[in-house]
Structure formats: structure tokens, C-alpha cells
């Protein structure tokens, strides 16, 4: 498998620069694109999905240049942030139709079964899409994206609106897919990236501010995350920026984000969430 190369991608919508000179190498496996709302993630995903063209820059995967949309579309499977299509059609009929739209040979019952098994929808094959739950529709969305075994799967906000159980199931599906494809996941939910990706990039206000492995990104907040043991009834929210707290017996352990060491606190390795917060705070315009 090859790298997906983005070179100096910019996008301007009526004088508003939404993406600014993004250069990024996306390796095979699962790759996260993190950033707050309005960072330009969805625009970048749509450019990668060939729905819109960049104002400048180029995208390449091996010898395929994204300016040749037909060739690029043979490589990609795309699931947008919200997905609700073909409500009156049964799951397997819709997948057969989508295979036809992707100019693939007619889906056999066996290959249909394999796709539906991958997304755990085999029991819903004969149900109309309009009768499926939100989580099942997301999984149908993934099913349509993986028809034809695309080398690049682009998923925008994959777990938005899903309940915890469905979220876990969906992450598992994405992890499995990343064994044979490049899976690009855009989200502002850090846990999704931690659970599925080995590397990620951060976008803030249309600019790429950081990219690397998950641990590298987390390390950016090294020396700024502390743990402090306090009594159960003590609140430090006014004094320190408490990220989380957990009860241990009759004590509480606070996780604090601070540039300086709080008294009696010990330095701890930062999580991706803390790296994310550090980056967004220090890069907001």
C-alpha cells in the first residue's frame, strides 16, 4: 500500500480561506484528522472524496492524481458526516445498486454476505433502510463505502450521534478495515482517534498545526499534565484547570492541566485528549 500525499492544498469559498496550504502524508492504516468544529476537516474530506476541487495544490496516491477524478473515484469509499439515503429500498438492493453505480460487476450473494458480515448487518439485509436504527444506518454507510474494496476509505465524524455500544462496534469495524486499506477518520471526538488510529493530524482554523503518531501528538503536552490526590469533598476547579477526577477509596485523584507544577502534584504522561487541548488552545486565532 502507498501513502496518500496532499501537497499545498488550499480552498477558498467566496474570499473565505477554509484550508490554508495543507501538506500532509497519510500512511496506510487508520489515520485521524482532528480539529475543533469549523477547522476545515469536512472541506478537506470532501476534497479527498472528489466532491469539491481545491483552489490550489494537488493530491496523489501512487500514480493517481486527484485531478483525474474518475481514476481517484475508483480508489475511494466515502461516508459523510450525516447519511440517510434510499429509505424505501432494502439494504441488499441498495448495495447492489451502489455497486452498479461504482461500475463494478453485479454483486453476488456471497460478496454481499461478506460485506454485510463486515459491518454486522447481515440480519438486516432484507429490511428497508428507512426502518434501520441510526447506528445501523451508519454501518450501512460503511457498507456502501467498502463495496469494491477501495484502497482509501474516508469517514467523516463516524460516531457522531451513536450510543456508546454502537460507537464501540463502529470503531471495531473501522479498525478491521484499516488492516487492508487507508482509513481516514475525521472527527472532533478524541476517543475515536485513540481507539482506532495509529497516527493523526490536527487542523485548526484551516491550518495543519501538527501531525505524527498518537504518542508523539500526546507528548506535546508533556510537563503540563499533573495528578493531585485530594480529599473527596475538595474542589479545586477555581484554582486549577481540572481535566478529570476519579475516586480512589475516600480520596479523589484530579488530573490537572497547568503550565506550572501545582503544589504536591506529580507530573504524568499526557493523553491524546490533553495534547489536543494544548494544541487547540495555543493555535486558535
Amino acid at each position, binding site marked *: 500500500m502507498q501513502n496518500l500525499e496532499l501537497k499545498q492544498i488550499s480552498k477558498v469559498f467566496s474570499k473565505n480561506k477554509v484550508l490554508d496550504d495543507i501538506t500532509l502524508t497519510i500512511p496506510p492504516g487508520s489515520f485521524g484528522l482532528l480539529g475543533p468544529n469549523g477547522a476545515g476537516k469536512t472541506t478537506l474530506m470532501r476534497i479527498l472524496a472528489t466532491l469539491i476541487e481545491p483552489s490550489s495544490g494537488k493530491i496523489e496516491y501512487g500514480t493517481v492524481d486527484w485531478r483525474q477524478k474518475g481514476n481517484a473515484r475508483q480508489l475511494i469509499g466515502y461516508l459523510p458526516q*450525516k447519511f440517510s439515503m434510499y429509505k424505501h429500498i432494502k439494504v441488499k438492493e441498495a448495495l447492489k445498486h451502489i455497486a452498479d453505480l*461504482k461500475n463494478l460487476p453485479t454483486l453476488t450473494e456471497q460478496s454481499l454476505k461478506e460485506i454485510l458480515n463486515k459491518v454486522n448487518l447481515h440480519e438486516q439485509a432484507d429490511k428497508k433502510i428507512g426502518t434501520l436504527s441510526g447506528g445501523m444506518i451508519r454501518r450501512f454507510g460503511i457498507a456502501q463505502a467498502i463495496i469494491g474494496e477501495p484502497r482509501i476509505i474516508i469517514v467523516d465524524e463516524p460516531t457522531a450521534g451513536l450510543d456508546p455500544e454502537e460507537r464501540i462496534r463502529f470503531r471495531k469495524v473501522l479498525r478491521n478495515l484499516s488492516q487492508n486499506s487507508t482509513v481516514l477518520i475525521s472527527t472532533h471526538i478524541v476517543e475515536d482517534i485513540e481507539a482506532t488510529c495509529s497516527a493523526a493530524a490536527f487542523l485548526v482554523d484551516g491550518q495543519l498545526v501538527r501531525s505524527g503518531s498518537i504518542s508523539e501528538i500526546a507528548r506535546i503536552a508533556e510537563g503540563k499534565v499533573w495528578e493531585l490526590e485530594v480529599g473527596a469533598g475538595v474542589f479545586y476547579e477555581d484554582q486549577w484547570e481540572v481535566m478529570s477526577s476519579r475516586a480512589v477509596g475516600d480520596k479523589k485523584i484530579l488530573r490537572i492541566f497547568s503550565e506550572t507544577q501545582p503544589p504536591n502534584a506529580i507530573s504524568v504522561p499526557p493523553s491524546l485528549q490533553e495534547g489536543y487541548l494544548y494544541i487547540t488552545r495555543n493555535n486558535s486565532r
Partner: protein
Amino acid sequence: MRTIQRTLFDWRAMGWNAYIPLVTGLVVLAYSLLAKGEERSILSMMEILLPAFSAWWSIFIFQDILDEPGGETLFSYPQSRWAIGLKRVLIFFMLYVLLITLILLVYSLILKHSFWGVTELQLIVQSLFFSALGYFLVVLLKSCSWAMLVTAAYVSFQVLTRGSVFPWSNLYFFHIHRPSGPEVLSKLVVILVVGLILLFSAQLAINRLEKFNE
């Protein structure tokens, strides 16, 4: 074969909306058969209902693509935007022409009285205009409901005012007898040209579409 299969899928994807123009056609036919001899009212009924409902299919074949969230997915498949847009509109317009022809055929077979020729041509050209208007509106508004409402408002306004307010925007003839060629030809050419402009404008808008419903 592939086009037929895709058209059948588009038909089923519309759900009950696919059947509305057929039901309207049956209503027009039933009325025409019951009002035998009443040429004026039959012509009015046909002119008001038949062309307007050609917009129905050209709007609702875009429900999954432009109205529903996630319709953008279809633009990521290896399909040209012409195939997604204009081609499908023209296929469903041809089906609508077939429907009009069938209604007129059944009418002429039962009542031995036909509306072939100029009346049929008039209905087809007016239908093309409404198909194009529906396509244009649904691309512009990205909402089937709003596209239908604007179409219905246009029809209601013209019918209620008998085309007397803003006559330049009126495509109806309101004949009291079967029209002859010279009576309608020049206006039909204008309607056809406006229809074609709407069709191609809508297609250009779809070719350049960058904002999708979320």
C-alpha cells in the same frame, strides 16, 4: 439494460411519490371520460394538471441526492454529474410523455374523439417546461418540499389570474376549443426555449455544486 435497471431503481427509491403523476393521469382521464363532449372543461383540466405534474418526478428523483443528508455520497461514485442530473431528468420526462400519450390514446379509443396533434404537442412542451422548472428549483433550493411549493404557487397564481397578471410569465393558453397550429406555435417556441434554458442552468449548477445538505 443498465439505464433501465437504474431507472427502475430511481422509481422505487421515490417510494409513493413515484405514483402521484400516475394517479393524476388517471384522474384526468376519468374526468375527461365523464365530461364527454365538454371540450372546454376537458382542455382546461388537461392543461392545468398534466404539465404541472411532470415536475413531480424531476423533483423527487433528487430527493436522495440533494434533499437528504448524505446525498453527496453519490457524487463520490465514478458517475458524471450529467448522468446524475440531466440524463435522469430527461429519462423521466420521456416517461411522462409516454404517460400523456397513453391518456390521450385511451381517451380517443373510448370516445372516438382525439386530442392528437397540436393539443398533444402543447401538453408535451408545457410538460418539458415544468420538468425543467422542477429540476431547476430542486437544485437551487436543495429541498423537494420547497421546490414543489414554488411550482404549486406558480400554477395557482397563473390559473387563478387566468394569466392576466404578469402575462409574460404565463405559459397557459386557457383554450375554449381545440387549438390550431398557428394559434399556439410562437408561444410554444418561447416556452420550449425557456424550458431548455432552465434545464441547462440547473445542470450547470449541479456541475458546480460544492455545498451539500448536512
